C-alpha cells in the first residue's frame, strides 16, 4: 500500500493532472447513463403517477379535472379495494412465511452430504427458470375440471369425488394460487439460503460439535444466527416480489370471478386498463408504492448494517 502511494506521488503531478479527470468527475460520467435511465423510467413515472392520482385522467393519459384527494377517498369507500388490500396482505404473508420455512429446511438439507445432491440442486433450477406466465398456464391446465391432474389427484386420494371447478370458486382458486406462488418461490429462495449457508465456515460446525451440540441445537444456536442476514434479505425480497406478483393471478383467474381473487396489482390493472379509471388506478399505485416504501426502508437499513459495513 505505502509503496504504491509513493510511486504514484513520484510521478510528475502536472502530467497526471492533465491526463486524468478527478475521481469525482469520472464517477459522474460513469454513473450518468444509469442515472438517466432510472430517472426517466423510475423517478419521473412515480412523480407523474402521484400527479395523476390527484386528477381525473382519461384513457389517453390526458389530465382532465383536479380532484384533490377524491381518488383516494373513493378507494377508501370501495369495498372491492379494501377486500383486495386485505387479500394482498394475506397472500403476501402466507406465501412468504410458508416459502421461507420450507426453503430453510431444503437449504439445510442440500448443504449436507447425501446421494443425489447435485441432481437435487440442478432440478431446483427448473421451476426458477420457468417464467410465471408458463407456471400459471401449466397449473391452469392441471386445474382443468374435467381432465386436469389436480382433480384426478383429489379423487385418487379420496378427498372428494365431486367435480371441482377450481378456478370458478374463489375459496378454491385463491388457496390454489397461494400454493402456486409458494411452489414458484421455493426454488430461488432455497438457492439463496443455500448460498448463505455455504458461506458459514466449516470450523464453526466443528467448534459446535466439540461443544457437544448436536442436531437441532446446532441449527438453532449456530446456523440460524449466522444465516440471519441472508434470511432477512430473502424475506424482504420475497415480500416485494410476491406483493407485486401479477402473472400467476392474471393467467389463472384474471382476479375473477367478479374480483373475488383480486390483489392490489390486478385491481390496479383492471381499474387502469379495462375501466380506464386512470386517476383512481394511479391512487392505487401510490398506495402500493407507500406500502413497499416502508419495506424498502427496513430492507435498506438491514442491507446497510449487514453489507456496507
Amino acid at each position: 500500500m505505502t509503496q504504491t502511494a509513493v510511486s504514484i506521488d513520484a510521478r510528475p503531478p502536472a502530467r497526471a493532472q492533465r491526463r486524468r479527470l478527478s475521481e469525482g468527475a469520472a464517477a459522474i460520467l460513469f454513473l450518468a447513463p444509469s442515472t438517466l435511465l432510472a430517472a426517466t423510467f423510475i423517478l419521473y413515472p412515480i412523480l407523474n403517477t402521484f400527479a395523476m392520482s390527484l386528477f381525473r385522467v382519461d384513457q389517453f393519459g390526458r389530465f382532465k379535472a383536479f380532484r384533490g384527494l377524491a381518488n383516494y377517498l373513493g378507494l377508501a369507500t370501495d369495498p372491492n379495494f379494501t377486500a383486495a388490500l386485505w387479500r394482498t396482505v394475506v397472500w403476501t404473508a402466507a406465501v412468504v412465511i410458508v416459502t421461507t420455512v420450507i426453503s430453510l429446511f431444503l437449504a439445510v438439507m442440500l448443504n449436507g452430504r447425501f446421494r443425489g445432491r447435485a441432481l437435487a440442486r440442478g432440478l431446483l433450477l427448473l421451476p426458477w427458470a420457468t417464467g410465471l406466465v408458463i407456471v400459471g398456464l401449466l397449473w391452469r391446465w392441471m386445474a382443468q375440471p374435467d381432465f386436469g391432474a389436480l382433480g384426478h389427484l383429489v379423487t385418487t386420494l379420496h378427498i372428494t369425488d365431486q367435480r371441482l371447478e377450481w378456478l370458478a370458486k374463489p375459496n378454491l382458486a385463491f388457496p390454489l394460487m397461494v400454493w402456486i406462488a409458494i411452489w414458484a418461490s421455493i426454488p430461488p429462495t432455497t438457492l439463496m439460503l443455500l448460498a448463505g449457508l455455504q458461506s458459514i465456515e466449516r470450523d464453526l460446525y466443528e467448534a459446535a460439535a466439540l461443544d457437544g451440540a448436536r442436531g437441532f441445537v446446532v441449527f438453532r444456536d449456530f446456523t440460524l444466527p449466522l444465516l440471519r442476514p441472508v434470511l432477512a434479505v430473502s424475506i424482504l425480497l420475497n415480500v416485494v416480489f410476491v406483493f407485486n406478483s401479477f402473472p400467476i393471478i392474471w393467467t389463472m383467474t384474471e382476479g375473477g370471478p367478479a374480483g373475488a381473487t383480486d390483489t392490489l396489482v390486478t385491481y390496479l390493472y383492471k381499474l387502469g386498463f379495462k375501466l380506464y379509471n386512470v386517476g383512481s388506478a394511479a391512487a392505487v399505485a401510490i398506495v402500493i408504492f407507500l406500502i413497499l416504501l416502508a419495506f424498502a426502508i427496513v430492507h435498506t437499513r438491514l442491507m446497510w448494517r449487514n453489507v456496507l459495513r
Partner: protein
Amino acid sequence: MNDAPYDAGSRLMRLASLALLWIILVVILFPFAEMISTSLKSQPDLALYPPVWFPSIPQLGNFIEVWSQVPLATYLKNSVIIAGGSMVLNGIVAIPAGFALARFRFPGRQSFLYAVVATQMFSPVVLLLATFRMMFSFGLLNTYWSVIFVNATTALPFTIWMLTAYFSTIPREIEEAAILDNTGRWRMLVDHFVPIAMPGIITAMTFAFVIAWNEFLFAVTFITDQDLRPLTTGIYTFVGRTQTLWQFLMAASIISIIPVFLGFLLVQRRLVSGLAAGAVK
C-alpha cells in the same frame, strides 16, 4: 464449499429428513412431468379420464406441429430481440456504474449505493400507468423499444449491485498497474477490468436477460400487435380461444424454458450468491 457434518446420533431423524426432502422435490417437479406428458399427447389422449401419464403413442410430432399451430418462430424472435436488447442496454449502463461504485472514492458514493438498494424494492406495476402514458406520447407503443427500455431499467438495481460486488473483489494490483501505465479510467475498465470480471458480467447479464425473457406485465400492456408479441404474451393469447390445444401450449412452453434453464445451469452458483450479494460474505 462447506458441508455441514451430520450428527451420527440421530440416524432416524436424518432418514426422515431425507425422505421429506425427496417428497418435497417430487411435489415441486410433479407439474413438469405433467407438462412433458401433456406435450406428447394427441387430442383424444387429452380428453381421457382418468388422465394417463404415458400416451399410447408419444406425439413427438407435436414439437414440430406447434410451430405452425402457434406463430412460435415470431414469438421466439421477438423474445430474443426484446431480452437481448434489454440485456445489452442494461450492460452498457450498469457495467460503468458498477465499476465506478466499486473502485472510485467520491462524495455521494454511499448515497448512490443506498439509492440502488432502495430501487430494488420498486414495483413495476406502480410504474405501469405513467410509463404507458410516456410510451403513448413518444409513439413507442407497439415497438420493441418500449419494453426494452423498461426491462433494462427493472433489472438495473440488481445488475449494478451484483457488478459492484464483483468489481470489488478484483485485487487492487490490477488498478495500480494500470495507473502506473497512466491509462485513462475508461481504458482501465475496458482493457483490464472487463476481461477479469467476465464471470460476474456474464452472471449479471444472464439475470437481465431472464428478467426480460419472462416479463409479462409490460409486454401485455405495451404490445398488442400480434407480430411483435414475445413468448410470454404470445403463448397467453393462445389460451382461451374456443378450445385450448394444451398439448401445443405445453410444447411451446417447454421450448421457451430451455434457453433460460441452460443459462441458469451455466451460471447457477454465481447467480445465487450474486443475488444475495454482500449479505453472503
